[in-house]
């Protein structure tokens, strides 16, 4: 075995991605079409939340119908009985194929079920494929800012200076609205009676928890977004009407976008998250509950555009950077779940946990001064 190389760090190195909570950073959003299309803005343009930046036409829905059967023909006879040919436009209930025999005594027709065009006539199956007219798809800017890059035929990259907060789990897609903090502290729960009708169109911020009744009340009152520390998974199931099995979200249509910042159960919102949200009360912000959890993950987000404290931070340098002594971390599993602290040391040697597993650990000085040992896998970096 070779000698220790200079490149190897003396202190063990750990790499655990954390949630981003940044008071000021350049947020960059790539807004692209799901299929190729047309970009409607130019590089350098300033856009607003609702500016349409790209548009495409997606194929309309196809309909396949048993034309030969309906006409009482063999499949290979169908083409000669078509009134409309492949590519022809058709209207709903218009005759597309017909069979007329015995001087008109026998008449059978196949009518179009849709407005659209004929895509295929099969002499093998005797079926016609008709397709509805193309449907436009539009992509909005989602955040206000400058178009810094055009991705030809696909979309754009928009940059803005903002406070950026990642949640841990969310429901519902991208929205924007005014921020309203409706609790006094990050440890307070949102109660049903605090959700007033005047919050319609707003994004409300709670502390540690929201009940099912309060979520329903918020939706009833037209609240477009809820940002909260924790929820009960059983309440989420009741709200959605089904149990989420795999965390791929963002398409839900429940009338509001929900962003959970800490986790499931009653969980005090991180003080820093709460502080930044409180500072931004009344501002127009963008939120998105879309979550995809695998390894690198897509987390829900809150973007609060502003013009202060513009800092240029390279994304790649943050990713390459890891956990060292002094790094702020959050413990993300029992028995210290939710506790925040700073890394004291990262021993190289494996240590025995209560489970008897030998694991790589980290020593953390948690907020009340106690030093605890936890598996490295059970902490995440709080990105400053």
């Amino acid at each position, binding site marked *: 075995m070779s000698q220790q190389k200079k490149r190897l760090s003396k202190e063990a190195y750990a790499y655990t991605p954390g949630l981003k909570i940044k008071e000021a950073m350049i947020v960059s959003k790539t807004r692209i079409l799901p299929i190729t299309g047309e970009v409607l803005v130019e590089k350098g343009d300033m856009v607003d939340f609702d500016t349409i930046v790209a548009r495409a036409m997606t194929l309309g829905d196809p309909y396949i119908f048993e034309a030969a059967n309906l006409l009482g023909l063999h499949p290979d006879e169908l083409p000669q009985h078509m009134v409309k040919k492949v590519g022809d436009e058709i209207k709903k209930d218009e005759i597309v194929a017909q069979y007329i025999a015995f001087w008109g005594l026998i008449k059978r027709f196949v009518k179009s079920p849709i407005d659209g065009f004929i895509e295929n006539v099969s002499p093998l199956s005797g079926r016609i494929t008709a397709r509805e007219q193309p449907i436009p798809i539009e992509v909005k800017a989602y955040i206000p800012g400058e178009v810094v890059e055009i991705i030809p035929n696909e979309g754009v990259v928009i940059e803005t200076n903002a406070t950026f907060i990642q949640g841990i*789990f969310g429901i519902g897609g991208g929205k924007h609205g005014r921020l309203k903090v409706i609790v006094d502290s990050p440890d307070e729960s949102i109660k049903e009676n605090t959700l007033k009708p005047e919050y319609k169109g707003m994004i409300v911020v709670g502390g540690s928890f929201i009940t099912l009744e309060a979520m329903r009340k918020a939706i009833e009152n037209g609240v477009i977004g809820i940002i909260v520390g924790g929820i009960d998974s059983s309440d989420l199931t009741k709200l959605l009407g089904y149990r989420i099995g795999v965390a791929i979200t963002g398409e839900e249509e429940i009338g509001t976008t929900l962003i959970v910042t800490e986790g499931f*159960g009653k969980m005090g919102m991180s003080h820093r998250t709460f502080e930044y949200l409180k500072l931004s009360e009344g501002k127009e912000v963008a939120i998105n509950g879309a979550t995809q959890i*695998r390894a690198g993950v897509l987390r829900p987000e809150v973007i609060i555009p502003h013009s202060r404290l513009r800092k240029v931070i390279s994304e790649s340098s943050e990713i390459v950077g890891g956990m060292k002594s002094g790094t702020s971390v959050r413990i993300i599993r029992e028995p210290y779940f939710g506790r925040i602290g700073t890394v004291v040391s990262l021993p190289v040697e494996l240590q025995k946990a209560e489970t008897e597993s030998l694991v790589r650990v980290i020593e953390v000085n948690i907020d009340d001064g106690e030093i605890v040992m936890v598996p490295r896998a059970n902490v995440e970096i709080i990105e400053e």
Partner: protein
Amino acid sequence: MSIVQRGWVEDEDSISKLKIKRDKMRYILATDVGSTTTKARFFMKTNEEWRYVASGEAPSTVETPYEDVTMGVLNAVREIEELLRHQIMNDKGTGIKIPFDGEKGVDLYCTTSSAGGGLQMTVAGNISSMTAESANRAALGAGAIVMDIMATDDGRPDYTKITRLRSLRPDMLVLAGGTDGGTVKLVIEMSEVIRAAKPKPRFGKGYKMPLIFAGNKEARPEIKEFFAGDFDLSIVDNLRPSLEREVIEPTRRAVHELFMEHVMSHAPGYTRLAGWTDLDIMPTPAAEGLAIQLIAYINKSNVLGVGLGGATTNVYSIYEGRFVRSVSANLGMSYSICNVLKESSIENIKRWIPFEINDKELENRLYNKMIRPTTIPQTLEELVIEHAVAREALRLGLEHHKSIATRLKGVKVVDRDLGDIRYEVEETYIKMINFHIIAGTGGLLSHAPRRAQSFMILTDAFQPEGITKLFQDSVFMMPHLGVLSTVYKDAAWNIFDKDCLVRLGTIIAPIGIAKEGEHVFDVTLEMPDGNNVEVKMNFGEIRRIPLPEGNEVRAVISPRRGFDAGSGPKIPVTSDISGGSVGVVIDARGRPLILPEETEERKKKLAEWIHSLEMYPPEQITKLMEK
């Protein structure tokens, strides 16, 4: 044809491309890029013997914001470097140094991958129980996750199928249908559905959807014309040339080629990773399947294997030489832990937990694991909960496997007694009494702190019958050795035997049900010291007789009325039994295993079994149960 049937064949083409001759190699690095974690394993040749030396693990980095799998690979490799003080990466830390230059690097690097959801496919055929089922087996055989199986007779109207196809973004499609020379009408109908839907591939915007046609050869001209333009069409031999024959190898090969060409080249960072490896990147289930086949090949036995991962559960069976793999896409221990809850139920998970925990608390803990999938249990309570979920994931995975491991349906069978002609409809040929080896791999099983834990997780979930040996992967390296075995079988076998395959022991579990406490069978073991151990088993009991690995004893099992140890009710069975790290476990809990419905009684039974097998540290588990 499985390896058991055709013998082990290395890939000569890949061998010729290795940077250094195999007999000159000293260090080998293998990684598995999983959906949650990237696992690196380091192997070394010492005294002419290949051995496993060290592991490194790091979160996988396939998704945003990283979108480059190589970052996770380098982080995992860096852990090994730290542990061994051996530099594996190049001086800039931007890749793997190959070959070893006398001071740094490795001689061979290979990897498997299931990250980014693995290989995702949709298959279609004419008849659900015939060509569509064969297409499904071919895709699963190639290590794919099958997102949907479509057939002309699956009961869904065309519109529903089209909508479904458009919403899925598979990596590729397999279209089967019709026996050679049969009608082409049905396969053309299914083609119309696929063409109308025009599904988009998951990766590579603007690329054509790869489509493998493995149906009636008479339909090829129409198929070629039909899919020209919008699809990247490959035509292979019909996978069901006649009702009596299933030929899935050409389809499996085509899937593998397209996987490398389309999926891997468009997945984030894979082009770079492929540039580092000496061998093609292999889907994890395909490599794991090779490792399980290796067990069957060496032991000349039917084997049931399982890979319990973070996102998926893969079950493998080798029965009378036939190899079948099933991939349950959303049954896993981290990323899809809540889908286990969804498909199983909170009650089914709780039935394996010997202490009190309320539903809401338990659910929240599972959801918290789902959203932070790389965390590990620090407390015993958390460990026991994960072990409960694992039992359910494996149980559901086996149920899924049984639905795929079937004889060819639709085959004409002549009933000699009745002189009747009927068609094969048997649901599955997986009968636990016919499997004498069960092997488990995956993070949870490999990392279980006590071997008795994985032994009992496998036992409770699969409920082996008769006499069954249990094996497990020591530190999760079956996929690594599976891919390595394609070019260097001797090294792979060596490591497999010495460091990977943990012989847990043997379970004796006669089939039958009786009243609690009723005397149901006796076992006599002729121990290595010459003494006989005689065990009287009452219904509901489980006992462990320590017998170290490498020891074999003669066992005589004498079942009483209503119990069957493999030769029939009440018939004694004599067999040589192997030891292992757990030993011999005698299970009189009955088959099928039914847990008491009453909560306190159930917890009492679980506690008894836990203590009897010394599954958890006694003091802590007692404290937990008394809480």
